[in-house]
């Protein structure tokens, strides 16, 4: 009986592993070599240049500028997105029912998640439009014309404006994730807490948050990867501008490869980004490890 197991497993796994090896692992492996060449990407010629590309990377102010922005996103995105998502999830679910109209909000807040990031970016470009945009129009309508900005054209607001869009888009997803977590907490925990006279706030800190910690951990890694990538939304909304004020590493890599025909160097940027992402994931796991609660 036992040895029959493999007859079933192997045919199921083989195609997936083969594809994964061919389309993921093989390109990754190749890229380590490409990063050590001066490949321009427009012919098959490439010369080995050793670690030159990485040496150049360390001295490239435009790379560090982009990395700084990723760093800022790495701090801001998880904190803001998870706070809002946890707040919503708690309001709509904790203790079994949530606030009035919860089921309506659940749907509405999840809605942005349904749209592709590229479309979201295009839509928000209109919202931020300097002359006919909703954002400036709203500010004027409520008597705050002094706060009007060219949101995406001003180096001081461009990155924040883009980040706000990602938060808007992502909150719904994490809200649903946390709601699922909260719903799996036995209702009796809350009933006991209520009898003991615990407030909603206390229940959140003492019951909800510890018991959805596994979900928070996963969310942190997801958002960390989003923050280290951030390509699509920046490319659609600002192309990294103005004057690289909203540039991120993935976009800089793209530009280096596809606009300036420096694939070798771009691949070196990609390899460094790979290690950053890996390090981040391991760090997040290590730092957020907690004992699991069985219930």
């Amino acid at each position, binding site marked *: 009986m036992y040895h029959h197991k493999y007859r079933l497993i192997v045919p199921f796994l083989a195609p997936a592993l083969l594809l994964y090896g*061919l389309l993921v692992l093989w390109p990754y492996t190749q890229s*380590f070599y490409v990063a050590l060449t001066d490949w321009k990407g427009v012919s098959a010629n490439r010369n080995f240049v050793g670690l030159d590309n990485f040496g150049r990377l360390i001295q490239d102010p435009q790379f560090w500028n982009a990395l700084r922005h990723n760093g800022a996103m790495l701090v801001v995105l998880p904190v803001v997105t998870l706070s809002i998502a946890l707040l919503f999830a708690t309001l709509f679910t904790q203790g079994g029912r949530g606030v009035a109209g919860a089921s309506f909000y659940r749907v509405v807040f999840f809605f942005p998640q*349904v749209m592709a990031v590229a479309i979201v970016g295009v839509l928000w470009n209109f919202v931020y439009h300097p002359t006919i945009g909703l954002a400036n129009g709203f500010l004027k309508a409520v008597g705050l014309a002094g706060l009007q900005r060219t949101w995406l054209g001003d180096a001081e607001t461009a990155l924040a404006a883009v980040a706000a869009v990602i938060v808007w888009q992502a909150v719904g997803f994490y809200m649903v994730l946390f709601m699922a977590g909260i719903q799996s907490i036995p209702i009796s925990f809350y009933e006991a807490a209520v009898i003991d006279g615990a407030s909603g706030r206390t229940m959140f800190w003492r019951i909800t948050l510890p018991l959805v910690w596994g979900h928070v951990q996963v969310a942190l890694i997801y958002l960390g990867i989003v923050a280290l990538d951030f390509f699509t939304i920046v490319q659609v909304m600002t192309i990294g501008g103005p004057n690289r004020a909203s540039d991120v590493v993935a976009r800089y890599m793209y530009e280096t490869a596809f606009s300036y025909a420096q694939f070798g160097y771009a691949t070196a940027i990609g390899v460094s980004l790979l290690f950053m992402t890996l390090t981040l994931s391991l760090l997040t796991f290590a730092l957020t490890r907690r004992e699991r609660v069985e219930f």
Partner: protein
Amino acid sequence: MSDAYANQLAPAAATGQYSRRDLLRRVATIGLAAPTISGILAACGGGGAPPPAAAPPAGAAPTSAAAAPGPKAPLPTGEARNPLKVPEDQPLDSVIFKGGYSDEYAINAEGIYQQAYPKAKVSHQGIQRLQEQLQPRFVGGTPPDVIDNSGAGNLDTAALVAEGQLADLADLMEAPAFDSSGKKFKDTLLPGSQDNAVYDGKQFALLYAYTVNGIWSSTRLLKDRGWEYPKTWDGMLKLCEEIKKAGIAPWTYTGKFPQYLYMVLMPMIYKAGGIEAIKRLDNLEPNAWQQPEVKASAEALYQLADRGYIMPGSEGLTHTESQAEWLQGKAVFIPVGSWLENEMKGQVPDGFNMAVKPVPSLSVSDKVPFEGIQASAGETFIVPSKGKNVQGGKELLRILFSMQGARFFSENTRALTVVQGSANGLDLGTAFASVQAAADAAGSNRFTYLFGTWYAKMRDDIKDQLGAMMTKKITPAEFVNKAQEFADSTAKDNSIKKYKRA
């Protein structure tokens, strides 16, 4: 567009729009290390964005000529029949950038090719973002036979030249013209129009659309208000003050793609210092950006921002957005190239009467008169050296650059070509007429700069600084210093192939 302006024709047309499949294919082919790919794919979520919006076909576009050839074009005879020894039955594979000019004109030329070589199978692809789609073919050694390498996301022509991927077009240049009997191909083109496509003395590309860049305004608006287009920059600043008092913004520009500001800065430098000043910049000479003419021009341009003559919010607009604001009369002047009317087709109010004027002179001691203008040829056609039908690719260019091919283009897109006299007698509106008039008035005082074609990254880095200056984030002095830094680091970088302008 020349490559210097390659990014301007449709810079926003397709930024960041990829289908899931495109990405996968690209990643698999290139082997780019891609920790971000899962992120991008996840982000693409519902299966990617809509295809980039292509410009609608221009004007009274005829039906696809390749598919259904119309009345037979007169084919050349004698030595002009097939001077390039095109194999009669070899298929022809053409890839054409489908942007501001659409691709009707190329389909028309392919139709004529089909008539001349009935046994050949002619295939046509009108696409955008050529780099992403053609790169695997170049790397794999199976490129198409002829390419219009233009628009946002095109292939880096200089890099293709450096890698030996392009065919030398010398034999085409010397061949008899397609329908100008007795003339050589090269003699039918505007003198100097192909200089931008010469690399180390060899003709590796041909440029088609003849573009005049300058300051655009509505002649009707100026007339109604009694404003006269100034010939000096001081006059421009005075007029701006008057316009501002009248409650209109004097200027707007494409803040999101500040490369359009080169259209003001470079002509000023040219007029003040002559072509020598431009050549110093092209040749990356030490301290070229520190020339007094460059400093004075940057300072003059900065006055628009400093004195509040620029429409608020301009820094956040794309090219079509800024042009739309301008068409709505919210600003009086805008720097653009002569593709403007075609690009904004359908949005131009009746009787708007748009016209292009040269950039006003910096001072009376300028080396070049007011009429001097930035004119260059764009739409870069290349013939890959490793294509299956190299001679056929050249032959298509001979047809495209013929009198009939070029006239079709002008009628279809309301733009000039480099083919001399091909647009004579065409009445295509005020914009077209003003472009012709500006080019005629300039006479030999036409110039273009080449560092944008040769050193794409430097061009874009300096363009960012130009944008920063016009939003008052940096001063003109800082702009000049930063530009010099980028030029110096380009000059020092051994991985960038250098060219010399004589």
